């Protein structure tokens, strides 16, 4: 098979906020950069982010990056790497100002400065009063940022491969990553894109679950590509359930709704968060609020005919605040629930939202994996940033507003490191043909015809299995069953067949490739979760209710090839300040 080849200095997989921020940095430095995305860039899921991006600008209340760092470490339940967290929090203000200069239409304060709102888990003076740190463009911050980054990339004349689907990474005999096999979705034709460096910025994998805030395209493709290239995934057991997805449907109601003064009530009208987080109540960390809602419902205090959700009240805020600060979620409530939050509470329930885990990287965005004696050996030519990566700044639980920050900070950091790499590696290396053939085989396998199960049937079972066996509360028994169920589902994959065999814009084929990716991530997640015998952040075990720092303050690493788990230490030493040692986490 002779597959056409295109060559660039540097390749970016993904045109969400992470990929576009990196592309901008590279294009401005005159690197020849290609950006591959399976959807037109502004359709990437960053567009759906609502509440805002964290930076200690101190426009509303006193603030500084060090307090932000403390909150992030505490929020991570002490699993975050403190060097990376320091780096991110220090860079935050500069990156937000840069976005403003690029054109992001942030909401404004009377002073003319960027509007900021309080979000969960934010404090002043290391655990003191509530901070106001989340920079917002109404409740459409992700849309504003993604469009602006795309616009500036148009200006910088970045090369876009829109509606190209990345299938698998290509490397050489020494393991250096040299590009990717893609498919042009419109024609169904394969294309190899070679590059001296490849940055994976393919976003999250919320489609693992049935009810999710994530788009149909969030299938963890980049994570699965890494797994298949022999790279382990880190901390996959930590999956965030957002406390306020619309019950039964999944559309997100931003944490900003509580930041603006909204609060949760149970069927008795009780503001129950007062019991779980006496100090900050509804603005506790997401893991805490999601658990509280689940407990309320489990103990029979849920609302509605099936007592299966709680209510988010905004009706006391007045129509001005809702119209000005939360117009997007108001539209969503009207469209999908036929209710106006100005006068009616919103039914909500914890909903699959965000992968804290992902492809292990250092704070330069370089992909690292254990090799010989070193737990963190750099994979040459390979970078990852954004939700698909695990730096780890979010540890066991991400703070709201920290992901948009993560994608900006580490998208840029990766680009800067890539520029250095390009200086020292002037020439393209020849890729390994067996590796290309193998990637092509995976792609061509879907041309097999005949009777067999449909992609849809397997995908539905997979999502149900993850929901049943890897949800907010977990036990040994449930997860062991989960592993068996997922393995059985994976075993069905070879017998799945496509009825649609045409080449032109074959979305069925795309969904088949995505299903394989989801299946790889599902097993990584189930296995990592089952092994961790403690409760930390988003990983809550009924049989091990406490955090166990002595045994488990370490990152998990799951390898697909031999279905094995390994661990590496948390980086507790920041770049310049003192370590924040683990403490009991109360809000």
């Amino acid at each position, binding site marked *: 098979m002779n597959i056409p080849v295109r060559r660039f200095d540097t390749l970016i997989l993904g045109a969400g906020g992470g990929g576009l921020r990196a592309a901008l940095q590279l294009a401005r430095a005159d690197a020849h950069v290609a950006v591959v995305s399976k959807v037109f860039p502004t359709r990437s899921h960053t567009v*759906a982010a609502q509440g805002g991006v964290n930076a200690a600008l101190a426009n509303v209340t006193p603030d500084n990056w060090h307090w932000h760092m403390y909150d992030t470490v505490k929020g991570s339940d002490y699993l975050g790497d403190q060097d990376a967290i320091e780096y991110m929090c220090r860079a935050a203000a500069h990156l937000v100002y840069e976005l403003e200069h690029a054109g992001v239409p942030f909401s404004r304060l009377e002073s003319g400065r960027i509007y900021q709102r309080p979000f969960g888990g934010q404090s002043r003076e290391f655990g003191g009063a509530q901070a106001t740190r989340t920079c917002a463009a109404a409740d459409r911050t992700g849309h504003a940022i993604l469009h602006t980054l795309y616009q500036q990339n148009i200006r910088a004349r970045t090369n876009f491969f829109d509606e190209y689907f990345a299938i698998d990474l290509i490397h050489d005999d020494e393991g250096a990553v040299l590009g990717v096999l893609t498919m042009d979705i419109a024609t169904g034709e394969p294309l190899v894109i070679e590059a001296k460096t490849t940055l994976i910025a393919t976003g999250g994998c919320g489609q693992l679950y049935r009810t999710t805030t994530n788009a149909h395209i969030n299938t963890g493709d980049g994570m699965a590509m890494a797994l298949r290239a022999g790279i382990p995934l880190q901390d996959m057991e930590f999956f965030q359930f957002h406390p306020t997805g619309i019950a039964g449907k999944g559309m997100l109601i931003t944490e900003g709704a509580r930041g603006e003064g909204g609060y949760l009530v149970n069927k008795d009208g009780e503001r129950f968060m007062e019991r779980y987080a006496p100090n900050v109540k509804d603005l506790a960390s997401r893991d805490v609020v999601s658990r509280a809602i689940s407990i309320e419902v489990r103990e029979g205090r849920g609302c509605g005919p099936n007592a299966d959700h709680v209510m988010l009240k905004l009706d006391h805020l007045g129509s001005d605040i809702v119209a000005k600060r939360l117009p997007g979620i108001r539209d969503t409530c009207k469209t999908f629930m036929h209710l106006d939050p100005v006068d009616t509470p919103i039914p909500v329930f914890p909903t699959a939202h965000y992968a804290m885990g992902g492809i292990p990287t250092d704070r330069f965005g370089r992909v690292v994996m254990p090799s010989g004696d070193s737990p963190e050996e750099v994979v040459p030519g390979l970078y990852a940033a954004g939700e698909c990566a695990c730096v780890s700044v979010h540890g066991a639980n991400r703070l709201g507003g920290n992901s948009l920050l993560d994608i900006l900070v580490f998208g840029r950091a990766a680009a800067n490191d890539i520029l250095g790499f390009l200086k020292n590696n002037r020439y393209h290396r020849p890729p390994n043909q067996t590796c290309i053939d193998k990637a092509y085989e995976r792609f061509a396998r879907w041309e097999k015809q005949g009777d067999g199960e449909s992609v849809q049937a397997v995908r539905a079972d997979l999502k149900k299995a993850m929901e049943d066996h890897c949800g907010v509360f977990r036990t040994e028994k449930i997860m062991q069953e989960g592993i068996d169920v997922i393995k059985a589902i994976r075993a069905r994959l070879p017998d799945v067949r496509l009825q649609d065999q045409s080449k032109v814009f074959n*979305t069925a084929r795309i969904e088949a490739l995505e299903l394989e990716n989801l299946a790889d991530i599902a097993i990584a997640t189930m296995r990592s979760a089952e092994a961790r015998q403690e409760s930390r952040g988003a990983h809550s075990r009924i049989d091990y209710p406490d955090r166990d720092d002595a045994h488990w303050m370490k990152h998990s690493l799951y390898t697909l090839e031999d279905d094995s788990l390994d661990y590496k230490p948390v980086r507790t030493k920041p770049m310049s300040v003192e370590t924040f040692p683990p403490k009991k986490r109360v809000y």
Partner: protein
Amino acid sequence: MRFKIYRYNPDVDEEPYMQEFVLEHVKPGMMLREALMELKNQDETLSFRHSCGEGVCGSDGVNINGLNGLACITPVAELTEPVEIRPFPGVPVIRDLVVDMSGFYKQYRSVKPFLIRYDPEPEVENLQSPEERDKLDGLYECILCGCCSTACPSFWWNPDKFPGPSALLQSWRFLADSRDQAMEERLDALDGPYKLFRCHTIMNCAYVCPKGLNPTKAIGHIKALMLKHSV
């Protein structure tokens, strides 16, 4: 519920045809996107774009009973049967409901849809008053779905020359931004018989915009600014 859906696959079909589908179970509150996904489970070969499912990504614009709209925020209960779904009018069809939007994107790029400033960058944010910022409401929310431009007769007839309502709305989004410093360039670029004055205020665009935006009004603002500017 009965559907008639435009089908065309250049790989196998000589010409387009309408295929009938029946959806047995219409769930309460079901949106057209979910219905299309169910129909795709019946016949996997049905192709359409979609992603976010909540009207923010702009992927799933189609023509629904003669009107352009987003499938994901169109409740099927409100549609008359048989529901006729076609690709956007006036643009090339790639397959089924998937159209070639490259002309639309090209027009978007043509209006320089990015903030241009010549002053040195301050070390903090540029200041903008809430009132100045309010002027961007109703403009920046555009999701580039294309519902408006592919409903605009002037865009159908002159897709290469007339930027279309979406691109013009974006042009005004930057003209209206107190931070932008490229008014002259922007207005010069829109001068000429085909750019602005091909809009005959037919209002199709504002009528179909799923985000409730009003390109006609934005075009009016640009025209007024241009007049003022030329005096």
